[in-house]
């Protein structure tokens, strides 16, 4: 009986998330070297990015194949604000989040008219348009060479690590609050049955755009942090690979939960760093991981990753 209770506690998504975040808080104390901490910082950034995609796709059911638009867009916006307008990096990061949120509202409108694969294709096109701007206005965006020579974050890896972890914690908390509130009920109803949701008085367009925007804010801030941490950015941040990477992270971890995308982001980031030594096989290996996951465990590799449940909310 006691072990049954204990099992139930550990199956609670909130407990899992808290345990995972507590474990992550200890990383700088036992990390083997700075390279290891650096990978964890990047993993934290991708965890926030994955949570932003999961908020849109996992909870509202709006498929995005172009989330790199927000990630790369946030990175470029923050860097440009810092480099050309002299706005301090933390403020530039926050402003880039707001800008990505506004972009989410603007892009959310055309997305209302399409669903499923058509929505996926439309979102896939967004970062390509941005990429076109980057290449065309090369004096500003630096074309293929990208941008460098702007303000980075702290010189201390520990400080950078805890700031990135704070972003993860804030995103997890925000997601939990949202999915456990009345918004959680509303977005789950939209995901389950749009026509029925509208028939009981839910303005589905408003909530879809709201979550498109919210997801954009989070992805934009994660991209901005990534840019200031790496101290140089290239158009690769807007490439299709960046949109695919976040999908793999969430699908591998488990769509529609909180701990799933988190774990997926850490697993894939570490895998990614080892695959850097064989770049020509990297995407092929990701594709195989994705196919195997979808075939064998379509709800994610983590067997204990709980989905958004009843009771007005999530885990």
């Amino acid at each position, binding site marked *: 009986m006691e072990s049954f209770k204990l099992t139930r506690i550990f199956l609670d998504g909130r407990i899992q998330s808290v345990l995972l975040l507590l474990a992550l808080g200890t990383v700088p104390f036992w990390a083997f070297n700075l390279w290891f901490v650096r990978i964890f910082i990047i993993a934290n950034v991708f965890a926030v990015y994955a949570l932003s995609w999961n908020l849109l796709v996992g909870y509202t059911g709006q498929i995005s194949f172009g989330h790199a638009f927000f990630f790369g867009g946030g990175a470029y916006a923050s860097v440009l604000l810092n480099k050309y307008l002299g706005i301090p990096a933390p403020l530039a990061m926050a402003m880039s989040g707001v800008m990505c949120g506004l972009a989410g509202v603007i892009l959310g409108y055309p997305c209302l008219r399409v669903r499923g694969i058509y929505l996926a294709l439309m979102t896939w096109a967004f970062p390509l348009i941005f990429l076109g701007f980057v290449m065309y206005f090369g004096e500003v965006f630096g074309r293929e060479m990208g941008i460098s020579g702007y303000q980075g974050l702290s010189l201390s890896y520990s400080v950078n690590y805890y700031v990135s972890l704070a972003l993860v914690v804030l995103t997890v908390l925000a997601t939990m609050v949202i999915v456990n509130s*009345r918004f959680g*009920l*509303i977005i*789950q*109803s939209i995901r*389950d*049955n749009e*026509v*029925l*949701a*509208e*028939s*009981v*008085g*839910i*303005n*589905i367009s408003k909530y879809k755009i709201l979550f498109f925007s919210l997801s954009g804010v989070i992805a934009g801030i994660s991209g901005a942090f990534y840019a200031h941490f790496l101290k140089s950015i290239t158009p690769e941040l807007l490439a299709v690979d960046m949109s695919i990477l976040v999908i793999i992270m969430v699908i591998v971890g488990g769509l529609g939960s909180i701990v799933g995308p988190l774990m997926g982001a850490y697993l894939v980031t570490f895998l990614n760093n080892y695959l850097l030594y064989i770049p020509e096989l990297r995407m092929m290996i990701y594709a195989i991981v994705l196919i195997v996951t979808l075939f064998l465990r379509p709800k994610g590799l983590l067997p204990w990753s709980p*989905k*958004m449940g*009843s*009771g*007005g909310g999530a885990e």
Partner: protein
Amino acid sequence: MALLEVISLSKNFGGLVAVNDVSFQISGGEIVGLIGPNGAGKTTIFNLISGLVTKSRGTVVFKSTDITKVKPYQLVSLGICRTFQLTSSFSEMSVLDNVKVATVCKTKGSESAKKARETIGLVGLEEYEGSLPGELPHGHLKRLDIARALATSPELLLLDEPFSGLAISEVRGLTEVLRRLKGMGITLVIIEHMLRELMPLADRVIVLSFGEKLKEGSPEEIVRDQRVIEAYLGKKWDDAI
């Protein structure tokens, strides 16, 4: 004054005239049956009133407000809600959450759960609060449909074939629920093919055939009308009454 006025409503799907110049009025507090053979345009009229399908011509007025171009979700705040012919639910949400989500546009916080529980009690699904819709038998899903619509606090409820697929005992139970709703002052428009159950319940019946209004009157008038008998009820009904 009529609660709902449907004025010269028409709908064409390409060359097919699904609804042709249909007009009727619904008064507050009555139960009106909307009957007719398959393809007569009954569900299309519900879809037109509820804004799911755009009207080719005509006007819909609710409480003296023109709602012809009002969006489906806005109708709920005005006091109109509908159910669908096939049972539909939020499959990954419990029965309680299925109903609770329908309260969110009119109630806040703890009021929402209270209202949802009251509504679930009204249709007799208290035991199934925590169940998923997939775990409910068909008859209970029909009740869940009605509970969800009721949770929006409607003045006018449009029910599309609430008795379809139900056993006689389930129909009787649901009929009692609908009488209770009438007692609460809710106006009901019911599309139904199970006329033996509908006729004793309805104050008035509107008959549609090939997209046009064939007859409107009390259930007694309807079952004795020769055109209705020929178009829909058939000779057996004539013999039975």
